[in-house]
C-alpha cells in the first residue's frame, strides 16, 4: 500500500464505504457489547466477549477514520481502563468481606432491576473484566498503530 498524502495514517483505509459504515456501526456495536456483557449471566456472552466486541467497534472506527479521530473521540487514553477494571473486579471480590462472608462470595440484590435484571457482585466483576479487555486490546493496537505512523 502506498501512502499518497500526509493525512493518511497507518491502517486508515480511505474507502468511503467503510468510513460511513463505521460511523453507524461503532455506537451500535458498543451498545451490543454492553448488551452481551449484561446478559452474560443467563445467555451466551459475558465480560470477556463484550470487551472484545467493544474493542472491535473502536478499532474498526479507528481504522476508517484515523487514530487521531478515535483518540479525540475517547478523550482519554484507553490504558486508563486497565487499572479501573482491575480495581472494580477486585472491589467486587472484597465487598462481601465487609459483610463477614469469604472473599468473592456472590452478593445479589433481591429485586430485579428493569432491563438489566438481577444485579450482583458478579455483574460488577464481569464489568471489570470488560474494562480490562477493552483497555488492553486498545492499548496494544493503538500503540502499534502509532508506532507505524511515526
Amino acid at each position, binding site marked *: 500500500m502506498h501512502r499518497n498524502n500526509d493525512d493518511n495514517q497507518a491502517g486508515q483505509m480511505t474507502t468511503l464505504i467503510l468510513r460511513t459504515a463505521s460511523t453507524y456501526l461503532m455506537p451500535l456495536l458498543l451498545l451490543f457489547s454492553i448488551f452481551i456483557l449484561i446478559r*452474560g449471566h*443467563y445467555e451466551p456472552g459475558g465480560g*470477556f466477549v463484550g470487551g472484545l466486541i467493544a474493542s*472491535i467497534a473502536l478499532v474498526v472506527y479507528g481504522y476508517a477514520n484515523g487514530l487521531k479521530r478515535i483518540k479525540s473521540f475517547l478523550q482519554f487514553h484507553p490504558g486508563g481502563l486497565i487499572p479501573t477494571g482491575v480495581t472494580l473486579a477486585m472491589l467486587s471480590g472484597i465487598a462481601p468481606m465487609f459483610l463477614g462472608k469469604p472473599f468473592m462470595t456472590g452478593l445479589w440484590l433481591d429485586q430485579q432491576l428493569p432491563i438489566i435484571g438481577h444485579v450482583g457482585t458478579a455483574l460488577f*466483576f*464481569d464489568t471489570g473484566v470488560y474494562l480490562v479487555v477493552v*483497555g488492553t486490546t486498545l492499548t496494544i493496537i493503538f500503540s502499534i498503530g502509532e508506532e507505524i505512523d511515526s
Partner: protein
Amino acid sequence: MLTAVLVGFVAALGFAFAGNHMRKSVSYWIPFLPASLFVYFALMVPPVLADGAILFQYNWAESMGVSMNFRLDILSLLFALLITGIGTLVFLYSTAYMRDHKQLDRFYGYLSLFMASMLGLVLAENLITLFVFWEMTSISSFFLIGFNYRDKKAGRAALTALCITGGGGLLLLVALLMMGQIAGTYSFTEILQSGDLLRDSLMYPVILLLLFAGVFTKSAQFPFHFWLPEAMRAPTPVSTYLHSATMVKAGIYLLARFHPVLEGPGLWQNTLLIVGGITMLFGAIHALLRTDMKAILAYTTISALGIMVFLTGLGTPAALAALGLFILVHALYKSSMFLLTGVLDKTTGTRNLTQLRGLGKYMPLVFAAGMLAALSNAGLLPALGYHSKHLFYEASLGHITHSTLLTGLALVTNILLLAAGLLIGLRPFTGQPSHQPGERVSSLLWLPTLLPGLLAVAAGLAPVFMEKTLTSPFTNELTTTAFEGHLHLWGGFDQLLMLSVMTLAAGLIVYWKFSTPKESRVDLVKREKLSPGGLMYKAALKLRNFFKTLIHILQNGYLRYYTSVIIGFLVLLMGLRIQYSLEFNYDLERILDVQAIEAVTMLVMVISVVVSVVSKSRLLAVASLGAVGLCICLIFLYFSAPDLAMTQFTIDTLTVVLFVLLLNGLPAYLLKADQGIHWRDLILAGGFGTLIFVFTLEVLNQPTDSGINAFYAENAYLLAKGKNVVNVILVDFRGVDTLIEIVVLAVAGLGVFSLIKLKVTDAPE
C-alpha cells in the same frame, strides 16, 4: 480490627490518587491517622492483659485454609503500639521535614502503605496472611529507600534491600508452608499446639534454616546486614520508622512468634547466639568507625538487632523479658536519635560528625532529646534502658555453660554502643559552635524528637507498672516458665551493678578516645571489597553477566527463533513424556463418526491453511488464517459451545485487524528462506501437529463425565443465580482465576505499551 488494618491501605490509595494536588496544608491532618490507630490499640491494652490473646476472625479463602484472622496478644500489641506510636511521631515530624518536597503524595502514600502492611504483619494470625504482609513491607521499603529516585545510589540501595529481604522472604515462605504442612493448619493459634510435632519432625532443621534466612535478611543480621547502612539513603523520617523502629524488627517479631513452638537447644539456640553475638559486636565496632551520623545509627541499629537475636537465642525467661523491654527501649531512643540527626541535617546541611559542634546553644530542646536518648542507650537511671540493660546482663549471666563468654560479649557490645550513643546525643552539641543556624527549630521537629526520651524516663521511673504491663505478660506469652526476677530502681550492690558501672566507665573512655574523629578511621571503612556486602555484590554481578550471556543466546531478537525454540522444546519434552503413557486404545467407531457438515468445515480449513502457507501475498495469507479461525468457530457451534464460538470469532477478527495494521509497516514480501530452512520448519510444524493429534486422540479416550459437569450444571443457578454455566464458572466458581487472568492481561498490555512507547535512550551510567 479489619478496619484498623485496612485504613492505612485505603489512605495510601487515596494519597496515590491525590497526585500533585496534595497540598502542604493537607499533610498536617495526616498524623491523625496513626494517632487514632494508636489510641485504638492503646485501648486494647487492658483487655489483652486480662485475656491473653484476642482473636478477630474474618473469612478470606476458607476452602484453602487461608483466613484473614488477626490475633492480638501482648507481642503483637507491643509492635502495633510501636508502629502506630512511632508512626505518629514520624508523620508529625515529616510535616515539617518534608514540607518543601514536591512529591508529598507519593511519600505519604508509601508511608501509609508501609504502616498498614507492618500492622498486618504483626497482627496476622494466619501464616499465609503474615507472609503477604511481610512481602508488602519489603516492597514499601523498596519504594521509600529509592524515594529520591534521581539519586542513582538510592536506586541501587533500594534494589539491594529488595533483593536481600525479598530473597529471604521467599525462603521464609517455604519454611511457613512446611510448617503448615506438618502442623496441618496455617492458623497460628493452632500451630501453637503443635510444637512437639514440629520439633520431632525430620524437617525441623530445614524449617529452622529457612526461617532464619527470612529473619536474618529482614533484620539485617551478619552477613546480610549490609543493606541496612545503604538504606540510609532514604529520607530521615523513613530511616527512623522503617529501618530502625519497626520494619527491621519484623524478623525479631517472627522469632518471638515462633519461639514457643520452635525453640530448643542445639540448632535454634546456637545459631541465634552465634549470629546475634557476631552481629551485635560487629555492628557496635563498625558504628565507631563512621563519621556520618546516619551511618553510625545504622550500625548501632544492626548491633541492637543482634542483641535482640542474641536474647532470643538465650531463651530464658530473663532473656525474653529483656527482649520485650529492649524492643520498646530501642525503638524509643533510636527514633529520637534519628530524628535529631534529621534536625541537624536540616539546619546545618551536614550529618558529618567532624563538622558538627556546639549546637546545644542554639537548639537546647534537641540537645535535651539527645541527652535523654543517650541516657536511655547507656542504660542509666532513670531511663528505661537501665532496666533492659540489667535484664540483659542477668540473662547472659544465667547461661548454664558459657556465661562468662556471653557476658563478656554483652559487656563489650554495650560499652561500644554507649560510646556511639554519646557521639550522637552529646558530641554535636558541645564544644565550640561550628554552625550558626539561622532559624529556630520548628516545634514540629523538636517535639517528636524529645517525646520518646521523656516517655522512656517516665516508664523507667515506673518499674512496677512496666513489669505488670510488659515484661511478665510478654514472658508468659513466649514461654511457659515464669520470669522470677523483678524490675526495680535499686537492686543493691551486686554483679549487675558492677557490670553497669564497668560499662559506664569503659564507655566513657571509649567515647573520649573516639570523640575526635581521625581520618585514618575513615580509611579503614574503605576496605569494603572483602566485606560480605562487597562479596555478595560481586557474586550478583557475576550472576548477572552469566544470565546476560545466556539471554543473548536465547533471545536474539528474531521472533521465528523464539517460536522454534519454544515449539521444539515442547515437542521434545512432551513427546518424551507421553510415549510412556500412550494407550492406543481408540474407539474408532466414535472417532470416525463424522457428519458431512463437519467434514466440509475441515476441508475448508485444510485448504485455507495450505493457501496461507504457499501464498505469495501477505494479505491473502492473513485472510486465510482468518478463515481457519472462523471454521473453528463453526465447529464450536456444532458442538453447542456458543460462548467459545463468540470469543473465538471476536479474537479472530481482532487478530486479523492487528495483522493488517502491521502489514503496512513491513517491507515488501521477498522469498529469502532457502531449502534447509523450509525443511526445518516442516519438521517442527509436523512434529507439533502430530503431538497435538496424538493428544487429542488420547483425550478422547478419557471418560468425559467426571461428575464435575453435573455439579456446575446443577449449582450454577442455585448457588450463583446464573443460567449460563460458562459465565458462572468464570465470574463465580473460578472467579479468583479470572481475577488473576485479567491481571495477567493487564500486565501484558502494559508490557506491550512500554515496549513500544518507552524507548531507552542510551542510559548514562
